């Protein structure tokens, strides 16, 4: 085994030592700055953290004093740094929703017609919350579009329903604004199409008019549904 270890690159040894926590002083500082600067090294450290972290299940949970949360809340800066990309852009989503909304009925019709086509199989989700269907969604994986029909969704005077795709990594991605009074067809961003698979989750949250200003759900999630093969 020691021979095998000697064959490992020094980087991997250092990543393992840093993740385990045995380094001190200048060696630890050097490893910390490499984590910040070198993605490949950081990935090796993460892989080691992933290997070791199940061990923490052995550590007993201990409740901190209630005052700690208050200290944290008062120490927070006003807002974390935000990363805004195209897919988080409100203007982009507004435009997309308007453009696709006009075509909704025709697209739903086309989807139903294409349901007879052999490949690829469309995905379906009943987006449920509080014991009833709010929306029914059908994903056309070939065209990279999603059609969402309101079922028992009741409109809110001040907030709009926004649709999110939550793939296996658990991170919600905005898909667009839904309507309570008619079907909406949304083009899935090309980068998200590979994530629109069976077992991915669709969620609907209530957001301010125009959609979430942050690119992440800000209001309550009122309904969710898992995509399944039709």
């Amino acid at each position, binding site marked *: *085994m020691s021979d095998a*270890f000697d064959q490992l690159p020094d980087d991997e040894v250092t990543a393992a030592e840093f993740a385990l926590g045995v380094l001190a002083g200048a060696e630890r500082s050097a490893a910390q700055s490499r984590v910040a600067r070198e993605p490949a090294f950081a990935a090796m450290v993460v892989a080691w953290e992933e290997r070791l972290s199940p061990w*923490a299940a*052995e550590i007993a949970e201990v409740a901190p004093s209630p005052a700690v949360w208050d200290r*944290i809340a008062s120490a927070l800066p006003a807002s*974390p740094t935000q990363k805004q990309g195209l897919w988080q852009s409100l203007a982009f989503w507004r435009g997309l929703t308007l453009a696709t909304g006009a075509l909704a009925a025709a697209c739903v019709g086309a989807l139903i017609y294409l349901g007879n086509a052999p490949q690829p199989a469309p995905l379906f989700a009943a987006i449920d919350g509080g014991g009833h269907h709010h929306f029914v969604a059908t994903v056309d994986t070939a065209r990279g579009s999603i059609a969402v029909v309101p079922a028992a969704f009741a409109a809110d005077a001040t907030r709009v329903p926004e649709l999110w795709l939550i793939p296996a*990594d658990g991170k919600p991605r905005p898909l667009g604004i839904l309507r309570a009074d008619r079907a909406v067809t949304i083009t899935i961003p090309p980068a998200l199409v590979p994530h629109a698979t069976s077992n991915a989750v669709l969620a609907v949250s209530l957001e301010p008019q125009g959609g979430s200003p942050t690119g992440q759900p800000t209001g309550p999630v009122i309904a969710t549904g898992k995509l399944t093969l039709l």
Partner: protein
Amino acid sequence: MDIDANRSLIAAALARIPGGDRAALQTVYRLTSAKLFGVALRILGERSEAEDVLQEVFVTIWRKAGDFDAGRASPMTWLIAITRNRAIDRLRASKRSRRMDPIDDAVEIADSAPLADDAMEMGEDNARLHGCLDGLAGDERTALRGAFFDGNTYEDLAQRASVPLGTMKSRIRRAMMKLKICLETEPTT
């Protein structure tokens, strides 16, 4: 806490933090603070210091949640790594020698079986890790435990085991290599 059941809740809450959602940070705190405080307390040994670390950890989470990549690491791994790193930095800065118990006592405490509810919560990953740890020599396992749970440095571990520093470095590196090979190749038992 059932870590697996809460995993998607924690990930979803982390994803809301970059938008400035304080309630999301509080959700993460509610779901994880007892575990993370336990981790920090184990390394630092004093509640007041561990609470300072917990505060630093959650301010870090607030600032850095946008960096969390659910495709690369599980949320608990990410949170535990931040906590261990903050606690170890504080331990190193304090220059105090903690956990310098004689090695025989340490073995007895360290190798005690996990509690039953912890064992149930461990899941497959932990069963695999434990299976692989069982394959290590006793002195290798003890050295890894001293580092992971107590935040010991190479120097601390060498002193505890009364061996030269170079011997301890070889021991740890050999143990980590065995662990990696085992985790990559052994089927789940």
